[in-house]
């Protein structure tokens, strides 16, 4: 987003009408919808004593679920960043038949509701599915294993990795590369010294976005994962389970922990954005 941040007003003493009402609606809405529930969560968690909080957030089951969530999200974000770069590169630089169709395909995970994606992937990689049938015969099991979770996470978070890279690749000056080529640079040198540094901030942003999305994903994963504690139980699922068992203190503690993580990611994304803006 291109937004002018400077606090000083451009035209002093002149303001378009509607300042009061738009400000009122915006902050009222955000307060009721976003800030009130967040404050409620932290309030609820603050009722818990520190020992209890610690016990709930770092219980063995919770720790295992974080480990599963974080490691699998990292892995899927990594796969997405690499494949996302390749897909973006091919779509921007090469002439591929049906490139418009492939371009539209990228956004498909945004359009497919997560529950639908979960059911569909579970069937697809199950013993009767088109892909699972063949994998089963080689002895690879996908459904109800961490591998299945990774596949679901790759599906839901893929567009973030591609959509951040494509504009940067499109904006890149071909002349710089041609110049380097004329000056005798090898292809791998051009890639390492020109292309990679240019797209690196976008890759990092895409990686973070897709990691954040994967970390919070629930709908598609619960179908394919099988939800066995200590094996394929992800952190958001643990929150939902604790809530269903009316263990409100444990639930609030874990939710606060996850919220803090997503706030940290948000701050990191903002720093990243201002950093890449400053560089330009």
């Amino acid at each position, binding site marked *: 987003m291109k937004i002018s941040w400077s606090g000083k007003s451009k035209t002093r003493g002149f303001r378009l009408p509607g300042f009061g009402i738009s400000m009122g609606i*915006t902050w009222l809405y955000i307060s009721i919808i976003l800030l009130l529930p967040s404050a*409620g969560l932290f309030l609820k968690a603050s009722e818990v004593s520190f020992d209890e909080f610690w016990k709930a957030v770092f219980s063995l089951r919770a720790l295992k679920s974080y480990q599963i969530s974080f490691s699998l999200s990292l892995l899927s974000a990594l796969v997405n960043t690499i494949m996302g770069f390749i897909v973006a590169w091919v779509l921007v630089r090469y002439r591929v038949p049906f490139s418009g169709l492939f371009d539209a395909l990228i956004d498909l995970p945004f359009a*497919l*509701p997560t*529950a639908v994606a979960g059911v569909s992937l579970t069937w697809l990689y199950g013993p009767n599915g088109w892909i699972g049938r063949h994998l089963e015969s080689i002895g690879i099991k996908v459904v109800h294993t961490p591998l299945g979770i990774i596949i679901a996470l790759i599906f839901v978070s893929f567009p973030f990795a591609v959509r951040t890279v494509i504009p940067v690749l499109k904006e890149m000056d071909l002349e710089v590369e041609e110049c380097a080529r004329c000056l005798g640079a090898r292809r791998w040198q051009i890639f390492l010294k020109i292309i990679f540094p240019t797209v690196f901030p976008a890759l990092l942003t895409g990686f973070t*976005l897709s990691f954040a999305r994967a970390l919070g994903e*629930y709908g598609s994963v619960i179908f394919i994962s099988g939800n066995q504690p200590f094996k394929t139980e992800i952190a958001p699922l643990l929150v939902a389970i604790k809530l269903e068992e009316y263990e409100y203190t444990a639930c609030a503690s874990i*939710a606060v922990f996850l*919220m803090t993580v997503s706030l940290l990611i*948000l701050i990191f994304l903002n720093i990243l954005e201002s950093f890449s803006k400053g560089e330009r």
Partner: protein
Amino acid sequence: MRIVAQLSNSRKKKFLILAFRFILSLLACSFLVIFIFTPLLAVFSNAFQKGVSFYLEMLKREETISALTLTLGILIIVLPLNVIFGVACAWYVTKYQFRGKRFLVALLDLPFTLSPVVAGTMLVLLYSVNGVLGWVVESLGMKIIFAFPGLVIATLFVTFPFIARELIPVMEEQGSEMEEAGRMLGASGRHIFFRITLPNIKWGLFYGVVLCVARCVGEFGAVSVVSGHIRGKTITLPLEIEILYNEYNLVGAFCLATVLCGTGLLSLILRKWIESSEKVSKRRYFFGD
């Protein structure tokens, strides 16, 4: 001899580059098809596995109808609220300079990075009987969690930034010179908005609405936490799909999934159409100038 060797060498190099390109393209396209496209294909091919009559029967079931009406009911309340907020927020962020703008825009991103389950949990901890605001809700004689209002609030939480985020870049790019000129010429605020701003942002607004509808209809995580799964009362379409799946009625689940997929696909097609039509209108404007 040396020239021939060089020639064959460069030919070899050219061939290698072409092969590299071909392999890379193949890799990218097959990744897209296998990981992204097949799930969609699976939905449609499975839905009609037991024939069209079974498909229609599934759609005509009482549970399906009630889930569909519930989902539409949520949409009818959520969408206008989000449109009002989206326009107000985009106007506020792009037309004025104020402190805390950065904070506000960052807040708009929070629902994207936060897990929907955590969002739903926050609402349960706030509004349920032993929640922080439970006594207020009880004294008003209302029921929010495990009831319709809870579903609406959960959906609002997840979808509120969509329209604002779509409008802010559009309005930022347009600038406010036209509005300021209108103001100088004596137009009222309402006049400025409906005659100048709205025609300029209509496609952005429309696409924001499309995105919001798609997400609203398909939301699962947040809604599933606050719904309590009461049959015929708090089961939305995605939750009904989960129930059918758990009852081993896989084909039935896929039948309902086609409805949601239809909405999603429509949003994709509309996006492509808007993108291309915007290009056309821009070019026309440029030449007509």
